[in-house]
């Protein structure tokens, strides 16, 4: 089920009323949440609920076993969790990628190997809930978390519908304590939650989806467009993916607030960053912090000398890229980020500075936009074609396509950017912005957003991050 669907418009108020009808018994609320979440997920494809249940049961059991085992056996139980979760992810997400790549590599040596390609459907959200369950087991192994003995609470943690299919990747240390206690809904949560849900809807349905029409048209025929068109389309894509994913996160965080949960911030105006290092502290924060805590630090972080630090950075970003999808383009995207992060680390340590000056905004945006070419292009050939055209400065008349769509996209982007600029100047996070409004002002603001949505909504099949 999509947040921007009519079904969700019926689903959420129903869950909301039922859920708060049992506000005195949080255990019953948890049962309602699990049923609702499974319904939410099953609406897409009920068969894959079995995977979700398997993953939840496994890590629930492993968590208890890690805690109860003697020190020498703890690692074995952690390996069970790692192998099972990453194994599932490997089969469903990367099997065809690795067999294809192997076959291609072999053919490079002159050996013909028939790639064993299976018709595998990628279960929605598997990358997100796998990381969530993994972090639970690792935290227990590191003795940073006590396992829960409440099976329903754990199932709620893994499946909680606002974050189930595209994050934010919530840590057990933040969410499970909230699940295992009485929850309340106060005026602040209502105001900030409602505000964030509607901002998220506007970001996704109005801004991102309108920009997406132009981007899709240009990228589908990238070979016939000139540098001007490809540059504009890539910049549009930079904002499309930002408003698409941050919009999704806003709806998720806002919805969770209305259920009495506090999720961590997932986006914090990433394009207002003066370095790539800062960008990754503001972009998809739940993933970047996950990669930092469970991959970069596990590899040794910056504790084993400068060379190993660069290696770790690069490796983390390469794997972070691969997490997004089974394509070499994502690996290249991660590689570009890894290289520039290493470069920044070198510059910052050499010149003893913490970040760049105002020029850093331009530099960061340019690097990020450049890397999006690989992220968005259909394949490596298309990406290299686009890069070649842009770099060789083959500018010319800008392709506009449907003038209404183009103007709408531009207009809505300006509105989105003005709002972001205002947020940036105000020093108030979007998550808390709703408290500035009294009931009447909030109603007015939401009403205007609704009318804007009516006038400018554009239909998109999915949220971009559903494919990851």
């Amino acid at each position: 089920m999509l947040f921007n669907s009519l079904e969700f418009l019926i689903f959420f108020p129903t869950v909301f009323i039922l859920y708060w009808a049992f506000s005195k018994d949080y255990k019953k609320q948890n049962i309602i949440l699990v049923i609702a979440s499974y319904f939410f997920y099953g609406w897409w494809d009920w068969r894959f609920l079995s995977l979700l249940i398997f993953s939840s049961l496994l890590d629930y059991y492993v968590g208890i076993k890690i805690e109860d085992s003697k020190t020498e056996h703890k690692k074995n139980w952690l390996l069970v969790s790692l192998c099972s979760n990453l194994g599932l992810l490997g089969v469903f997400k990367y099997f065809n990628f690795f067999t294809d790549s192997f076959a291609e590599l072999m053919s490079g040596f002159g050996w013909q190997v028939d790639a064993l390609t299976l018709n595998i459907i990628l279960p929605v959200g598997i990358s997100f809930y796998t990381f969530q369950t993994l972090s639970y087991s690792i935290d227990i192994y590191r003795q940073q978390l006590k396992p829960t003995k409440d099976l329903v609470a754990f199932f709620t943690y893994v499946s909680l519908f606002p974050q189930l299919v595209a994050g934010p990747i919530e840590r057990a240390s933040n969410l499970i304590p909230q699940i295992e206690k009485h929850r309340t809904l106060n005026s602040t949560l209502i105001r900030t939650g409602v505000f964030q849900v509607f901002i998220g809807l506007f970001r996704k349905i109005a801004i991102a989806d309108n920009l997406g029409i132009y981007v899709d048209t240009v990228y589908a025929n990238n070979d016939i467009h000139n540098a001007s068109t490809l540059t504009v389309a890539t910049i549009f894509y930079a904002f499309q993916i930002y408003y698409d994913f941050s919009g999704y996160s806003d709806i998720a965080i806002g919805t969770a607030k209305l259920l009495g949960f506090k999720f961590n911030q997932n986006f914090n105006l990433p394009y207002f960053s003066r370095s790539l290092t800062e960008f990754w502290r503001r972009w998809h924060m739940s993933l970047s912090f996950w990669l930092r805590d469970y991959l970069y630090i596990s590899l040794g972080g910056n504790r084993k000398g400068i060379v190993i630090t660069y290696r770790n950075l690069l490796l983390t970003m390469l794997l972070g890229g691969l997490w997004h999808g089974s394509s070499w383009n994502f690996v290249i995207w991660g590689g570009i980020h890894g290289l520039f992060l290493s470069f920044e680390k070198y510059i910052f340590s050499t010149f003893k500075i913490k970040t760049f000056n105002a020029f850093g905004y331009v530099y960061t945006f340019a690097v990020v936009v450049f890397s999006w070419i690989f992220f968005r292009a259909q394949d490596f050939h298309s990406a290299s074609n686009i890069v070649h055209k842009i770099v060789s400065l083959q500018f010319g008349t800008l392709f506009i396509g449907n003038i209404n769509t183009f103007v709408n996209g531009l207009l809505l982007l300006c509105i989105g950017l003005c709002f972001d600029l205002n947020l940036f100047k105000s020093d108030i996070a979007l998550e808390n912005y709703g408290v500035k409004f009294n009931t009447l002002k909030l109603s007015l603001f939401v009403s205007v957003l609704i009318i804007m949505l009516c006038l400018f909504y554009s239909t998109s099949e999915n949220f971009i991050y559903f494919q990851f």
Partner: protein
Amino acid sequence: MLKPNIILVLKLTVLVLSISYLVDKVIFYSLNTLSDNVMTGQSIGKLNQFLTVKDSVDCVVLGNSRANHHIDVSLLNTSAYNMGIDGTGIAYISALTHSLDKQHNQLVLVHIDTKDFFDLNYNGSDIKTLSAKFNRDKNITASLKQSGLISPLQYFYYTINYNNKLTGILKNYFQPSYNYQMYNGFDPLILSEDQQKIRDEILLKQENEECSQLTTINPIALNYLEHIKEDAEQENKTYIFITSPIYNDTCPEDNLKLKKLLTEAGLTYWDFSNLFKDLNDTSLWKDETHMSAFGAEQFTLHLKQKLESISY
């Protein structure tokens, strides 16, 4: 949940619904006033002009962008209006044929493409382009309701009917795109040098289309064809279905199947898909599916001859 919070949730819900309902109506009726005076542009003006002239001309051309760019109605021997609109399909055409005056003697040229019938993903959503006339034009409203594609939200928020049309309306209200009194609906594609280069690249890269999956007829398209057939059976109308040329049609099977379908339904169908195939003249084209102004002229002259052969 505490009582004050229940009250806050209820208060917010009622306020949002009431305010948004009111704002929606104010904007909707303002847009009605504006859009009724817009006669240019594809978002609403062309439809307004069509609704004004449809029962006074002797020939109307209905269809998608290919109809719009390929049939120069000024070359025909009769007063005519070209109502080809980008991105529309058989559902949209059906709504327009339904809106024609049954008493008026008229030639209706319906431009169709085989993909309109063999694309199984087609759901008739092109009819939603007419939403601006929902509850404002009797025939179009009936067609929209019959399509089943009207969202329940449209009964509460009327501005949805103007979805993605606002900028077009405002632009054409304050600055009309052309003199609509001199406009007959035909938009020739005149190519700049840059566009000619792009065209040549596109045509060079033409690959053979996969034909095997194009043999099942879309039931929704078929249903709309039935509706058009009902309109075509009226005494005062002559309906001719046509497919204009495409650069390289490598799938003759679907054309033959479509021809069989229309012939069995008692409808006249002229398939010109391969009319220019052997000429190898790229100046006739803008891309693989759209002809240039020169191509449109050549095609319309051919069509005119064919119409004359049946005394039109």
